[in-house]
């Protein structure tokens, strides 16, 4: 029942883009089971998902619903045990080898022995770019996240919010069309989080990238997304897919509007229903 709903909603959103060139993620009946000492854990169960170019898709759900696992399968950090998934028309492994995405982790995960500029340079060095190209990309992406002037600082000299911005610049420096973000602002306080949400919205609007964003905050998901995937746990599955047709360019004030509150309400209902199902 829920799977059909999810597929309906997904095809509804992607209805205008039948052309495969616009399809960034395509997952069908994706399953992932971890074998543990307490028996198998179904982290993902029959997940169907489509993401089109330029979308901002949030995965939302309680802990253990598989939202991070799904993101890690897309990034080829985990392997699905059943089902099919393609990223940019390739297998996740091919996409990873072609550096098709940038990944932002829950923590900034900056290397403490490298300066901010050095951290942004890390993927560029691995890609084998020459020095001039590296310098150009470092400057451009640090400016994009408002960190110009902090090139020579070390990560531990910066605040948590600035560190996370640097890690976003590092992911952007690879110049991927797809940005995967795993609760990037989860460890930050409310004020910094609001501010970074606004900046991320502007960044997405300006660069026209596809973003997949994992969160467990409803306002964050509604504020940022064009599509919200509501997930529920045990087994991890897609409960509902909610379209979020707010204007592309958003300010924090939008959170007071009826449209926003209506969508937030639907997300909350979806989360609650997912839980009720679990309690039975």
């Amino acid at each position: 029942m829920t799977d059909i709903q999810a597929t309906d909603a997904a095809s509804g959103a992607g209805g205008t883009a039948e052309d495969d060139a616009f399809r960034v993620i395509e997952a069908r009946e994706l399953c992932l089971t971890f074998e543990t000492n307490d028996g198998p854990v179904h982290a993902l169960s029959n997940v169907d998902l489509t993401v089109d170019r330029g979308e901002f898709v949030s995965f939302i759900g309680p802990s253990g619903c598989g939202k991070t696992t799904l993101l890690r399968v897309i990034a080829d950090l985990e392997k699905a045990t059943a089902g099919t998934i393609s990223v940019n028309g390739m297998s996740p492994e091919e996409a990873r080898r072609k550096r098709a995405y940038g990944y932002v982790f829950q923590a900034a995960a900056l290397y403490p022995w490298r300066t901010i500029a050095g951290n942004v340079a890390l993927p560029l060095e691995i890609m084998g770019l020459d020095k001039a190209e590296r310098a150009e990309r470092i400057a451009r992406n640090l400016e994009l996240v408002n960190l110009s002037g902090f090139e020579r600082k070390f990560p531990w000299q910066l605040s948590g919010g600035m560190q996370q911005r640097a890690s976003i610049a590092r992911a952007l420096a690879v110049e991927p069309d797809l940005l995967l973000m795993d609760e990037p602002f989860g460890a930050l306080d409310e004020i910094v989080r609001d501010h970074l949400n606004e900046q991320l919205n502007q960044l997405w609007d300006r660069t026209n990238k596809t973003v997949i964003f994992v969160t467990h905050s409803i306002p964050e998901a509604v504020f940022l997304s064009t599509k919200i995937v509501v997930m529920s746990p045990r087994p991890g599955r897609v409960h509902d897919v909610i379209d979020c047709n707010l204007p592309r360019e958003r300010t924090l004030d939008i959170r007071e509007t009826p449209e926003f509150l209506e969508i937030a309400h639907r997300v909350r209902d979806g989360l609650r229903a997912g839980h009720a199902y679990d309690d039975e």
Partner: protein
Amino acid sequence: MSRSVPLTVLAGGIALLAGLAIQIISADAVWSPSYGLAAALLASSYLLAIVWRHGAAAAFLLLAIVHLAAIPLIGHIGHGEGEMGPAYWALLISGWLAAWTSVTRLTAAARSVPPSARQAINLLIPFVFGVWLILIWEAVTRGAGIPQVLLPAPSAVWAKLIASLPILWADFVQTFMKAVIAGYVLGCGIGFGTAILVDRSPFLKRGLMPVGNMVSALPIIGVAPIMVMWFGFDWQSKAAVVVIMTFFPMLVNTLEGLSASSAMQRDLMRTYAASYSQTLLKLRLVEALPFIFNALKINSTLALIGAIVSEFFGTPIVGMGFRISTEVGRMNVDMVWAEIAVAALAGSAFYGSLVLIERTLTFWHPSNR
């Protein structure tokens, strides 16, 4: 709190007065101008300690007076070697307590001075401690007439050291420059290389590591006679002992360090499609640096011990271990101590330079920044 006189000042003052009283009443006391001068300087230092208690200037003045007093305190022994009585020991204790007071004051003053001066004070304090250790050693050995075979005075060791510089240098070259350096570089290098190989091979990790952990706990110095049989009497057999001693600590520590990077950091490298060698060089080896330096530091002392002790089992007629074992047999204990001093100096310099290199390379580590 600030009204009361500190215990060190009280005890030192009492010791000073007691010393003077005994000196005056006892019939066989040794008199000299040095005794009076030392007593006068110590008395003024205690007066100063009571009157002017706070600030870096007071602490430094106190320190200066106390160390000025140390000169006649040692000089007085010359007027009666081995005949020092209670009057002298009381004065010595009083001097030691005055030095203690000055260091306490200096530590307190260090909190209110700029960081650069604080760093200088932090270096000065262990230096003062070392100076008084040697002063008391000198005073006790000479003042109480302790036989040289049991414990020579530092001044005697110093004299011997200066007189036998060419021999000490030859021994140093033989033991340190040849056996220690060659064995250390080889042992650490092979240990490091093996760790990289073991890290790549699960079979080696399962098979070699339990053996490695066991061997690193064995007293490897026991193989020294076997090494002499294998590699001859010269430095090569000592270097071989050092190689065996340093290999396993390096192997075990490097392996531990290679697994020090977090899963998230390794995932990050995976998302960049980084190769094995890129991940190794840009992430895992850097994270392993504190562990590798730990092994390098442990090995610097192990190497020196290994090289010196293995010379006890057969050597040409040069080398620090050889000199120690033969001179002790000839009762030339001052020469033994001179060798020990050279070994201590070389070992500290070795260890210290490793610490300096470590600080520059791991400035980012939470323990250093």
